[in-house]
């Protein structure tokens, strides 16, 4: 028998890989998440040298290469409202089974906003879900407020905020 490159029966074997990891958040992010869960508060830290306000908080300022000390003066409380700097909306599926080409239909998602919460500065940007699905109602600079889940549903995750909804501006 010779190796026949016209061989028709070319086999592919599907295999499913599952794995799970358990990870901690780290000191500062843990505290930030506990504040979200227990008090519906948003906290960031500020680098004492370059004054970037970082959300989520980091223990080292990457730019200045200094530790941000765990002191009250380095923690910054952010407001419950913010400004959408930019937003985008993804439609269409992303998960495809390579063996069969199958993909789940009708994957629709809410738009995502890049939000600067009040009390932050130009380095404070949070990506989160916007409630408004009609993107014609959204624009750069629109004001939004965080809508939180009920206390018993909050777990210390970013999704403790359900979404950000438009703040109606008084005319």
């Amino acid at each position, binding site marked *: *028998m*010779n*190796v*026949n*490159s016209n*061989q028709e*029966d*070319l*086999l*592919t*074997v*599907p*295999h*499913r*890989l*599952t*794995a*799970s*990891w*358990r*990870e*901690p*958040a780290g*000191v500062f992010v*843990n*505290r930030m*998440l*506990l*504040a979200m869960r227990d008090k519906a508060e948003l*906290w960031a830290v500020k680098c004492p040298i370059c004054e970037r306000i970082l959300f989520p908080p980091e223990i080292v300022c990457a730019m200045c290469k200094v530790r941000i000390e*765990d*002191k*009250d003066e*380095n*923690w910054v*409380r952010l407001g419950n409202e913010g400004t959408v700097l930019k937003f985008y909306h993804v439609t269409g599926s992303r998960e495809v*089974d*390579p*063996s069969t080409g199958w993909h789940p239909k009708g994957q629709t998602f809410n738009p995502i906003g890049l939000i600067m919460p009040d009390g932050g500065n130009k380095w404070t940007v949070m990506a989160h879900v916007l409630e408004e699905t009609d993107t014609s109602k959204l624009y750069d600079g629109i004001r939004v407020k965080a809508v939180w889940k009920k206390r018993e549903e909050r777990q*210390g*995750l970013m999704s403790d905020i359900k979404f950000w909804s438009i703040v109606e501006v008084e005319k």
Partner: protein
Amino acid sequence: MSAAAPEEILISERNFDSIFSYTAGTVRSKFLTEIRDNKKIVGTKCRRCNTVWVPARSTCVKCFESLKDFVEVSDRGTVTTYTVINVHQTFYPMNPPFVLAIIQLDGADTGFVHFIGETDPEDIKVGMRVSAVFKEDRKGSVLDIKYFKPI
């Protein structure tokens, strides 16, 4: 906001679940389809060093020759080493205890990993002769061989 008292530590679980599709390629497909369709085990033979590689592969590991010649090897062989698995893992196709062995099939220069069945693990010896037991319902997989039994 700085640390006042010992804090609860949050742990998050990250889950990965994705489907992959392994391509056997021309040579491995032939190896698998010969098992599936004809209950035959084939290897590839290197024209330069004469090594017979089982399962069949496309390039000689030793001399980098492209392997062009399939050779049929026997479905019987010799146990060169084995181990008994006692601990369960989700990805094992069998429940413990079971025996994994490296079997050199007659005609092959390499070992072939598979199970040994129809025998008590205590009775298995290095050097014993075994023979493949094929499944009735074969799909083109090395598991189309159920196990090797002593002869």
